[in-house]
């Protein structure tokens, strides 16, 4: 048995080595890293398409699924995948206007939470632990098997996103023209929702159902302020999510507070900082400078 120290020292390199020394922390870092990359990529489109509420809704449908799985002694991830994918496909079938169906989504969301609560109350042993893990995440409880599952799922999601990247971006920015150009809007919407559902299911292991936004929405929303080229914004979104996850794990290791709190707190603070700098200084010249510029000779 190797001795792994736990105390915090002024030598940060040593502190990081100490964190890595623990196998449960290694697995947490591996799962967290994969989740952050996937959530950063998928999140960009969630924010661009204004599907944040939708994504949240099926993470809670996933909660009902996970609670059901726990009740029948099935792995929670199976229930999560089942619930969130069902929710995702259903919302995609509602059509591209789903983002305007706040009321219906809210109603389904509330019912799903209630259903999940019922399943968990039927489960007599370890009721509160399970509920807590699904709602708020339990990254330090990730097993090597779960890490391998996350590797597979992350690879599949990234390949899928790569395949639909350009049509998805086009339909997110300009739905009407994309449709007129013959893009299959419904299959595209369903494919994206399925990818989000899988990403959400795995991200739940890190952040929990209720804190899913901290990796799926906040980094991407911040990145949209930092870069106006989609490819660069996606990189920025991934970097923010990664930094928040790693720092969160490091801080939580040396303090008595939960990882999820640190991740949500970090991304929120950074979001506020970026919004403040953007509002105060802006990094684009005031529109007046271009208004004054006359367009080229138009008489042709």
């Amino acid at each position: 048995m190797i001795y792994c120290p736990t105390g915090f020292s002024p030598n940060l390199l040593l502190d990081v080595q100490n964190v890595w020394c623990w196998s449960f922390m290694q697995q947490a870092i591996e799962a967290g890293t994969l989740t952050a990359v996937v959530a950063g990529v998928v999140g960009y489109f969630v924010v661009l398409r204004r599907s944040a509420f939708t994504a949240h809704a099926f993470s809670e449908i996933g909660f009902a699924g996970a609670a059901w799985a726990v009740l029948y002694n099935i792995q929670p991830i199976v229930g999560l995948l089942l619930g969130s994918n069902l929710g995702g496909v259903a919302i995609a079938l509602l059509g591209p206007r789903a983002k305007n169906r706040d009321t219906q989504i809210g109603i389904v969301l509330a019912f799903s939470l209630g259903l999940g609560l019922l399943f968990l109350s039927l489960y007599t042993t370890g009721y509160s632990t399970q509920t807590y893990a699904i709602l708020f995440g339990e990254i330090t409880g990730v097993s090597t098997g779960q890490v391998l599952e996350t590797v597979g799922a992350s690879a599949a999601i990234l390949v899928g996103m790569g395949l639909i990247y350009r049509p998805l971006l086009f339909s997110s920015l300009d739905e009407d023209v994309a449709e007129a150009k013959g893009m299959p809007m419904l299959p595209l919407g369903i494919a994206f929702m399925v990818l989000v559902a899988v990403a959400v299911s795995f991200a739940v292991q890190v952040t929990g159902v209720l804190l899913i936004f901290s990796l799926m929405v906040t980094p991407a929303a911040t990145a949209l302020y930092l870069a106006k080229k989609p490819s660069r914004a996606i990189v920025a979104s991934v970097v923010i999510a990664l930094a928040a996850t790693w720092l969160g794990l490091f801080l939580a290791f040396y303090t008595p507070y939960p990882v999820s709190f640190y991740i949500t707190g970090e991304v929120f603070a950074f979001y506020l900082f970026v919004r403040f700098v953007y509002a105060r200084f802006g990094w684009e010249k005031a529109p007046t400078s271009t208004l004054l510029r006359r367009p080229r000779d138009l008489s042709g």
Partner: protein
Amino acid sequence: MARAIEESGGPSLLEATGLSAGYEGKAVWEDASFSFGRGEFVGILGPNGAGKTTLFRVLLGLQRPMGGTVRIFGESPRRGNPRIGYVPQRHTIDTDTNVECLELVRLGLSGTRWGFNPLSHADAEAAERALEAAGAEYLAHRRLGALSGGELQRIFLAEALVSDPDVLLLDEPLSNLDIRRETELLHLVNSVVRTRKVTALLIAHNINPLLPHMNEVVYLANGKMVTGTPSQVLTSESLTRLYGVQVEVLKDPHGNVAIIGVEEHHGDIP
């Protein structure tokens, strides 16, 4: 007044005979016939609900005609025809869209391709050419959400032009523009029509800004369509026949037109 374009001969790009279209079995207009060649500027006029957008939907292959024949480039309309550039009606972008204009214009070309090709610069070059043609290269790196109505219309025009189309369908691009931007955009469309030999169909509410540019008019009203040159269509006789009630077309000394006798008059004398 309307300037005629001589070199519009040759086989027609757009052709319809006895065409009718509508929704749920109910025709919006019937028995429409037209034929437009290359390099024509066609103004599409008529009151609200007359079926102007329906005509575009038929040409785009988004809606099947209820009767008659329609040919575009000698074939039936089909969805996703790359030879048609389209700017939809009431087209807007959310004001918080922090994505640069060049990206949207690029997607007009590459947005229909699957996969991910970060190293391709061909579409970026095509996008820059399209922005130049739309007089909008200075907007390339601006954020979409920060544009004014007129600037946005130029970007949409560039997005429609990037695939090098032969036909442009512009659905009310002038709404929300002030008179100066309106004139600028029409000059721009006209220069595209002339330099690229593109046929532009433009839906508008006001006749007068179009008069110096368009050489053909499609006037939709009362479930029918008349087509011809502006001097043929915009007369008291022709519009009285179309509406079925007495309509008066007045002209002021500057050539501006006002239509009197219908609930909406589409030509305000400035």
